């Protein structure tokens, strides 16, 4: 198929999709309307289970099995990336040369590292109360560690980042989620049912299994993002193929 024909086929497909989508939009309930049957029921269920953050209640209680699926996609993608970006036989590792960092960057990076880490942990821990949770907080925790790379250098990052431990933490987060779900079975309820006492509304210990599943996701996401970034940084900074070496020699 020539380039021109391909563009025509594409234009046809896009226009047809656009027409169908616009027709479907006209049938949707009007934007900003007051009828949200699922939303109202989710809010009601979250309040019954003493979870102040309804979004967390939906993710970790009402739709906990779906979240297990999504978490497994995350786990699988990280596993795939680790396999794809491993060091192959014709490649070798070189230690990257540290370059001096401007004093301002160093100062603010080191200053913000503990602050970012604390905010990340806060967001994970308060997932059942305030906006946030394991997914968002995990990413913040993982980025906090990488401030060390920006503020100091790669070797400093490597020192606080034992990669094997993070890979185990990634798997442990996934396992903790699965096992918490199995706890429901042991208690004589359904898989991933919220079997723990709901606690006092609007306190850290509210929501039954929600804070536990939330913490499991937080651990997994934080470890997953660290492992992902480590693999990409390794490819960019450390691993060199035969071709690079030849070019370097020539």
């Amino acid at each position, binding site marked *: 198929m020539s380039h021109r024909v*391909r*563009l025509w086929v*594409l234009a046809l497909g*896009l226009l047809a*999709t*656009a027409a169908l*989508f*616009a027709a479907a*939009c*006209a049938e*949707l*309930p*009007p*934007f*900003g*309307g*007051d009828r*949200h049957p*699922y*939303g109202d029921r*989710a*809010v009601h269920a*979250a*309040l019954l289970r003493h979870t*102040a*953050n*309804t*979004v967390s*209640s*939906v*993710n970790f209680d009402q*739709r906990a099995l*779906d*979240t297990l699926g*999504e978490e497994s*996609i*995350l786990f699988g*993608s*990280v596993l*795939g*990336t680790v396999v*794809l*970006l491993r060091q192959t036989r014709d490649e070798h590792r070189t230690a990257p040369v540290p370059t001096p960092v401007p004093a301002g960057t160093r100062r603010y990076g080191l200053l913000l590292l503990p602050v970012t880490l604390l905010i990340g942990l806060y967001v994970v821990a308060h997932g059942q*109360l*305030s*906006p946030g*949770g394991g*997914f*968002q907080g*995990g*990413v913040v925790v993982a980025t906090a560690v990488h401030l060390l790379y920006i503020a100091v250098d790669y070797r400093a990052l490597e020192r606080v980042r034992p990669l094997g431990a993070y890979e185990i933490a990634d798997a442990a987060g996934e396992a903790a989620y699965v096992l918490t779900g199995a706890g429901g079975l042991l208690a004589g309820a359904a898989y991933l049912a919220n079997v723990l006492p709901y606690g006092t509304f*609007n306190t850290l210990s509210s929501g039954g299994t929600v804070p536990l599943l939330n913490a499991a996701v937080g651990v997994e*996401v934080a470890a*997953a993002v660290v492992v*992902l970034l480590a*693999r*990409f940084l390794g*490819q960019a900074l450390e691993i060199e*193929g035969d071709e690079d070496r030849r070019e370097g020699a020539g």
Partner: protein
Amino acid sequence: MSVLPYLVAGWIFLVGVYGMATSRDLVHAVGCLSVTQSSTYVLLLAVGYRKGGTAPVFSDIAPGSRPVVDPVVQALALTDVVVGATVTALLLALVVQIAKRHGTTDPDALSELKG
């Protein structure tokens, strides 16, 4: 115009698909896939919006005192963001390997099979 937010989501989707189909670089194609995916966030949040609504979080407002937006679609969008980011990372890892093995990231130059 009450359907405009939905149409914006459709527009982002079409732009992303157009970019993927006409892309001359795999990194660019992966970026376009992310754009296509983000159209679903816009659609979901548009579906869940309620006029005068606030966040469905009851740590600082009394339940029932104010209308809240739909928490179900927010939960869907939220997990999708992190999962989408890791799937993008997986695709970029594939591109890194393709670039290493074939020395190119142009999808049109990757037609021949290599052992």
